[in-house]
């Protein structure tokens, strides 16, 4: 399949856009992988909602510390410069707009930046929201990282979300396996195409009127 990036390639692509010195929260699931691809020598400070800044990678086997976990409850490590704090402070940090960036998974993203990523609304599912809603509205930028299509072949980029929302108008950019999209006042604009994917293909797959980002005016338009 040369029409799309593999998951490591996508994580590397996302990581390349994170500036040195940024404070970043990586959501559970796919976004976690971004940590492994941050450019060498750049210092990106990872926040985990359960009370830590300066989170390091997974420990070596046999060195798991059960008191040191991330939001996905996986074992992690502590970097020099790390700091611990309690949950109210951790979420004050998010809600107060101090995180530069948060990277989340998604079930759906609408062309106005609405995010649905906590519930598919199926009646028998056990609802669980965690910190998703706080992250969605808190970080300065919210990037979504996801496959463009569900396993069933439906587009996760939609005109209007049909799943229960996590946050309204919060997503600023979507990294998918086929392209990168900015959320603009005129809907999704394609920022970058991956592999052999074309704009027409994306239009077909999503059913959306997509434009290419006008590079010259990106900064104005993409927020």
């Amino acid at each position: 399949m040369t029409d799309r990036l593999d998951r490591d390639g996508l994580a590397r692509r996302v990581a390349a856009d994170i500036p040195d010195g940024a404070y970043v929260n990586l959501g559970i699931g796919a976004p976690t992988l971004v940590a492994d691809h941050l450019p060498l020598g750049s210092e990106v400070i990872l926040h985990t909602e359960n009370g830590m800044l300066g989170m390091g990678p997974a420990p070596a086997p046999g060195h798991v510390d059960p008191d040191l976990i991330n939001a996905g409850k996986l074992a992690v490590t502590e970097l020099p410069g790390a700091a611990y704090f309690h949950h109210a402070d951790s979420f004050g940090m998010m809600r107060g707009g101090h995180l530069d960036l948060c990277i989340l998974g998604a079930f759906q993203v609408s062309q106005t930046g609405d995010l649905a990523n906590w519930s598919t609304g199926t009646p028998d599912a056990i609802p669980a929201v965690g910190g998703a809603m706080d992250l969605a509205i808190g970080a300065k930028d919210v990037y979504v990282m996801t496959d463009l299509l569900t396993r069933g072949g439906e587009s996760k980029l939609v005109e209007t979300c049909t799943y229960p929302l996590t946050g309204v108008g919060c997503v600023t950019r979507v990294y998918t396996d086929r392209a990168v999209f900015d959320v603009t006042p005129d809907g999704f604009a394609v920022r970058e195409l991956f592999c052999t994917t074309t704009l027409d293909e994306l239009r077909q797959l999503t059913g959306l009127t997509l434009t290419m980002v006008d590079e010259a005016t990106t900064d104005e338009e993409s927020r």
Partner: protein
Amino acid sequence: MIDKTAADIRDAVAYITHGATVMIGGFGRAGQPVELIDALIDVGASELTIISNNAGGGDLGLARLIAEGRVRKVVCSFPRQTDSWHFDRAYREGRLELELVPQGNLAERIRAAGAGIGAFYSPTAVGTPLAEGKEHREIDGRTYLLEHPLRADVALIGGLRADRWGNVVYRRTARNFGPIMATAARTTVVQVDEIVPLGTLDPEAIVTPGIFVDRVVAVGNRRWLRDGRFVGGVDLQGEPLVDSAATDTVGGHR
């Protein structure tokens, strides 16, 4: 002389009564006061309302409390875990009420109770199903929801070290909800690995001052922490996480 240490862990939880509201610290297993919960099970209170971030995992601690049928209602942000089978069954069988609260609102509501705030406006959950029924208010062009304090009769908390005044320090991400829950309950009980002499804890590094603590009890090294596989997480689709050595299959791109 002030001495908040309890020699017998059951004494520390003896006054928890039928129908009480109990905050339980911890995020997953980190910081979960398993020994205090075991003592609570022994003491026998039931029809409890539990306020905790998760709803227990595996077969011990909060999961066991639920399995024993002692819990009437859970207020939490994320009940669904790989190993939350006891919660899952009780919930599906309708034996358990669930109030789902976004994690940041959960934390801030607990803090508000401890800090004497009557209510506050939060931007979290606006426009989502969890905003239903809540008062909306526009402040400086942004919409907020009115959120109320969450109080408890008792808070059970897991710390690292304490002194006889009830000053507590925590360990790494096991700190999580402990410091705020300690402020929001009428009675706060903290289990620690070790009780140290007064004056030993660095006054600059004490996280929970003793004013918020009623009882501290030493439980020694928490061996259960290292029992079995280190699990409890769930991915975006609700699929179980496997143990941490195999992160490669966990952080995957779905």
